[in-house]
């Protein structure tokens, strides 16, 4: 199967999937429903796992398979499940009002993508494409954009839980960067990162629950007693 061993094909696939990931990220910005956001996130994570799998396939590195599988299990199955369960458990309103309205947010996301390109472009100029060793390098701007948009998303969300989700999507950007630039971090590091992400979500969800109990709301704009 020459197609499946043609690095150009791999490159094309990865580029396509990365583009979809970026679109999904912007969808997250525009999304108002919490539950749908979680599904979007799960889809995004799945695509990332697929990118990782593709790279693993073409480079034949075992630890990237591992990363792909872990991503798939953790980010597109386990974490969304935990979040969905939490949403149902504490019966929070599904509607999430961002601080800035959707059109403005989307425009800002677009600008951030542009900025990501500006930042990553000089790096890309120094890269060589087309060889297996550079597979996926061209997704660096996407990774930076995911990161920036994720950051923006955290700052733009009122609900505690949606901030957690945004933090996770930001993390996805990092994963994309790691996987595309260096074919994943060393496995032991990668494992540690996954573990941390898992614990972070657990910790944050517990906190969300307690905040909800204490404040009768998940709106973090209410958390403004500590000043000066």
């Amino acid at each position, binding site marked *: 199967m020459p197609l499946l061993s043609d690095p150009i094909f791999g490159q094309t696939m990865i580029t396509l999937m990365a583009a979809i990931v970026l679109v999904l990220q912007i969808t997250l910005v525009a999304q108002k429903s919490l539950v749908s956001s979680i599904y979007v996130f799960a889809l995004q994570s799945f695509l990332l796992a697929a990118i990782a799998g593709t790279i693993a396939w073409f480079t034949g590195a075992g630890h990237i398979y591992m990363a792909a599988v872990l991503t798939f299990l953790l980010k597109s199955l386990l974490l969304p499940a935990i979040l969905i369960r939490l949403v149902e458990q504490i019966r929070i309103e599904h509607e999430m009002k961002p601080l800035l309205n959707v059109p403005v947010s989307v425009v800002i996301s677009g600008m951030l993508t542009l900025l990501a390109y500006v930042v990553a472009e*000089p790096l890309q100029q120094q890269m060589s494409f087309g060889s297996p060793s550079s597979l996926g390098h061209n997704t660096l701007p996407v990774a930076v954009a995911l990161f920036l948009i994720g950051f923006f998303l955290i700052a733009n969300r009122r609900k505690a839980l949606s901030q957690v989700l945004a933090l996770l999507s930001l993390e996805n950007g990092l994963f994309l960067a790691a996987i595309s630039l260096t074919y994943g971090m060393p496995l032991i590091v990668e494992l540690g990162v996954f573990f941390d992400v898992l614990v972070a979500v657990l910790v944050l969800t517990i906190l969300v629950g307690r905040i909800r109990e204490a404040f009768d709301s998940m709106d973090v704009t209410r958390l403004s007693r500590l000043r000066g």
Partner: protein
Amino acid sequence: MDPAHAAPTAYGLALSLFLAGWLLSLVLHVWRGTSLRLAGFVHWFALAGSAAAAAAGAAALVQDGSWRWAAPASAAGFSVSVRLDPLSAFFLLALAALALPVSAYSLGYIRHGAYGRSPVLRSGLLNLLLAALALIFTANHVILFLVAWEAGVAASYFLVTASHEQEETRHGGWMFLLMSRAGAGMIYIGLLMLSVSAGSLDFDRLSGAGSAMPGAASAAAFLLLFFGFGVKAGVIPLHAWLPAAHPVAPSNVSSLLSGIVIKTGIYGIARVCFDFYSALPPWAGMVVLAAGVISGLLGVLYALMEHDLKRLLAFHSIENIGIILMGFGGGMLLRSYGYPKLAALALAAGLFHTLNHAMFKGLLFLGAGAVVHETGTRNMEEMGGLIRRMPRTALYFLVGAVAISGLPPLNGFVSEWLTYQVLLAGFGTTAEVTRVAFPAAGAMLALTAALAAACFVKAYGITFLALPRSEHAREAAECAPSMRAGMAWLALACILLGLGAPWFMQVFDGVTMQLLKTRISLAAVSLSTASIQAPPPRTGAASPLALGLLLAAFGLVPWILWLLRRRRVTTAAGPVWDCGLPALSASNEYTATGFSKSIRMIFSVIFRPRREIQPRFEASPYFPSEIRFESEVRPAPGASLHSAVQEALLRLALRMRQIQAGSIHAYLAYIFVTLLLLLLFGVRS
């Protein structure tokens, strides 16, 4: 003992005693912190240490050259590196000469609760303060100097706030601390500039380093150091802490503060102007001279307006700092124009006045302490007639008052006389602007000194003479023997430093040799006539000893005649002329406020006096039942400087608090914007 080892041994002994006293006080404080007897016991360490320090200073001054000792620096840069060079030794001597009587005085003084609730701790702090001062004067390393400097500040602060239960005390201590720190900031920067340029933190290596720096940096460092040390010295307009902190401190502490703590500023200025800078352009001397003139004149003018005895003395400290700086400034100008001999005279004048001021101001504060303790008030308007209740204190205070007024034959006269000679010598030897500055400064010095005399007529007259103005004053009693001993020592020092000035002047030989390469006593002393003299081009001589003896003789002759005569004429005690009204009472007396009224009116441009008289009438406007009189003057320039700065800062700070308004979105936005900015501008550059 080998004389070469005398100074180091005594010096080490002094420091050990001070520090041992302090450490011991910490232990004793834990054991029995309120025991006055233990507090007194700790003071004995200060007393013994001061005696050792006096020996060290004297021994070091007698022998030529400097003694150095250094321990290797720690990893953090701290180094015990000390040096007894002539300048250090002189200040050490001044410290000891004051600390000794003050310690003695304290033995009796603290028995009446002057140290507040933890007397043992405070008495230990006095030891710490003395140790810090000794180290300030002898440090040979920037870091040791600064450590000692701030340790002295901390010790002074906690001594000043001994009775911190009162708001006024807290405020005074706070002002002291705040301004000290601000001054220290300037000193840090200045010393850093010097030491980085010299490539060393050793004072030895800093000698002359200032002049080796490039022009602008050299000037900036000089100004920073001068004004930094000026804060400590109380140079107007950086003086605001002085009248706030001196009055509220226990009087033995006030005495040390005024006598020697502010002299650390003078030490710094002397060290900087004459050692770290081997040459300075004339403007630097003009700055110092101007600071001296302004401080001297405004200091005494504001002292005149005071009726708080201790505040009055505090303002006089500013005045005397001004006189010292006139000497220094003159010396710097003369050095700039190439007259090292005259510069040496000026330096000696300034240093001599430093010591003299320590003696008489220390004495006056101790006397004030005794008076304040007996009358329970610092307000002179409630004193009066104390000369009958406290005759010894009154006598010692009188000696101090005469000395501070610069009257012959006491020590104040000697140093002011030298300063006059310096200012006179500067005229015609220097260029156009400065040649006028010198005699102008001389005229202002004359005004300052005459006003000081007026002020002490007031202070002494209102406090000690005439009728008591309050019940407390009427029932005052003479103070404890140890307190009197302390004052007697200082009074004696004022007299001896005056009469023995020609001999004492030789002490400055080492200093002038070190800093200006000339021996001052060759030019300025004539032992055959027991006189001090000014070297050419403006000669002149004065012999306080001869003047004193002649005065005594001329006074004694008529007095003896009078004693002989007295048996034959009738002397009767009679009432004072009271315009025929019934019995003179204390309310007829001139008040301190009244005494200074004419000066208040004459200098109203400066004082902007405001007064308010509110009579209350019952039946007819001719018979007021009650009259309220209020009078105040505008505080000295710079008195509100710190509060203006403080207010502006606080307003700004309040506005800046909006940064932290509790919104996590804002917080995230800060980071996000920072990130974007750095990505935009940081990566490509």
